[in-house]
């Protein structure tokens, strides 16, 4: 064997060519890729613009490789953060009192337990049962209950507004409305025990709904006739998407009062309730109707 191969090995190493990868090519000039932005109108593509008249889905957003542009990522992460923040927020213990409401709590004792044990969120704690007996007016026509549900942010946001409008709408119809109250760690079915305890003909729980992407301020209302423990979902009527961009609280309160009226007249609620004569006025609230789309707003503003 000649020494040639060994010599070339030495030379390769000396020239840096023995590295597993050859030295990088000189850097090319890198022009910035186009921005894809939702929903800033001046930057929106033609497809996104046409689609936005029909859907809030993020379409026409383009791509970089097979992934999202940075603007899309930031908008998406901001929407996600808003939803997660709404879920994580706990209603302060003294919030009810600060609003002049009777403060109640379910059997749940922590936020994690609230998420994991819906059964405990449907029943009142012993102290709350006692508080109810001591402070709440009994034998009422309608018992409104404000509650945190899955968004304390929504409850603290437009909750009082909805409660006041709803109470006023009921009183305007001549019904006896129960003492205003607010329940912590509450699931929908908690209205059954509360309504039963105060002897209400109808119970209406107004609570924060499960946040969606970019939204955490929506309230839902669930109404039940002859509330008592053991009622199921088919016994209730509901209305969702109550917030400034959906159905505003004042308008929602009128529709909810209409629903209560129908229940008091027909002495039933849920699947048995006939809303055909009210369908036009109720719109979304006329049972199981689809929800109006949430509007998407630009959450991230960056100065360039």
């Amino acid at each position, binding site marked *: *064997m*000649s*020494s*040639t*191969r060994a*010599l*070339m*090995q*030495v*030379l*390769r190493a000396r*020239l840096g*060519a*023995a*590295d597993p*990868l*050859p030295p990088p090519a000189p850097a090319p000039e890198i022009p910035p890729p186009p921005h894809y932005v939702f929903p800033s109108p001046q930057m929106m593509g033609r497809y996104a613009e046409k689609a936005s008249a029909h859907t809030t889905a993020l379409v026409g957003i383009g791509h970089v490789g097979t992934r999202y542009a940075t603007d899309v990522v930031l908008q998406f992460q901001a929407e996600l953060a808003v939803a997660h923040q709404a879920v994580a927020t706990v209603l302060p213990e003294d919030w009810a009192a600060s609003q002049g409401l009777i403060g109640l709590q379910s059997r749940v004792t922590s936020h994690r337990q609230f998420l994991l044990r819906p059964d405990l969120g449907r029943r009142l704690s012993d102290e709350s049962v006692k508080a109810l007996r001591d402070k709440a007016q009994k034998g009422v026509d309608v018992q409104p209950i404000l509650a945190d549900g899955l968004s304390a942010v929504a409850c603290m946001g437009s909750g009082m507004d909805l409660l006041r409008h709803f109470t006023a709408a009921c009183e305007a119809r001549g019904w006896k409305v129960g003492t205003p109250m607010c329940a912590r760690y509450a699931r929908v079915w908690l209205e059954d025990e509360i309504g039963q305890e105060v002897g209400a003909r109808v119970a209406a729980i107004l609570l924060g709904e499960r946040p969606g992407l970019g939204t955490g301020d929506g309230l839902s209302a669930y109404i039940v006739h002859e509330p008592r423990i053991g009622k199921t979902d088919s016994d209730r009527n509901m209305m969702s998407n109550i917030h400034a961009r959906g159905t505003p609280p004042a308008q929602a309160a009128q529709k909810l009062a209409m629903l209560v009226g129908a229940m008091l007249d027909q002495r039933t609620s849920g699947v048995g309730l006939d809303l055909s004569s009210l369908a036009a006025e109720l719109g979304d609230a006329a049972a199981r109707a689809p929800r109006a789309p949430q509007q998407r707003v630009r959450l991230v503003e960056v100065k360039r």
Partner: protein
Amino acid sequence: MSILEPIPPTVLSVRRIHAAHPSLLRSYGADPERHASLGLVTCDQDDPTYVALDEATKHAKVDVVFAKSFYAGSAHASGRLSGEILGVIAAADPDEIEEGLRALVRCLEHDACFYRADEKGTVAVFPHVIASLGHYLSREAGLPAGTSMAYLVAPPVEATIALDAALKAADVRAAKIFPPPSETNFASAWLAGDLVACEAAALAYAEAVVEVARRPREDR
């Protein structure tokens, strides 16, 4: 792929003629008085084959009677088995041919070869060092058998610049210089000196070829 990796030659045919016809022997440069058997090899790299033929003469009683490169190289071969060179060794009997072919093929498969001078493999260099010449190349180079020699090949412009670098890099003298074009459009040089000087010359040659391949236009 990175630079200075071997480009292994492909041996395309290895055949023997135990008792060749005298006319054939004569026309291929053999002497019917001394030679009866022939060994034939084709390969896709010519210069490694010249080195390997010389290697054969060091391991067996064989003569290299015929060795010619084909025009324009193996990329334009006349057939699947042609490659760019036919080498013929001749001997008195088949056993010597066998021994010679063994050394020849071993040299092609494990030793002499071109190397990549750029990442893409579009420039090749042959910076081979022979520690001790056999009687074939010593005759061709006009050097005593046993001398050390650097056998250097590259494409025309690379070869020209690299040869200058090699001559200046060590105490070597030019035994033969073949300016371009060779049959295969390369250029080559045979430099003689002691082994250390030949190695230094081969290194300088290879390095210069790589450098030219990387920066072909000094004006940019």
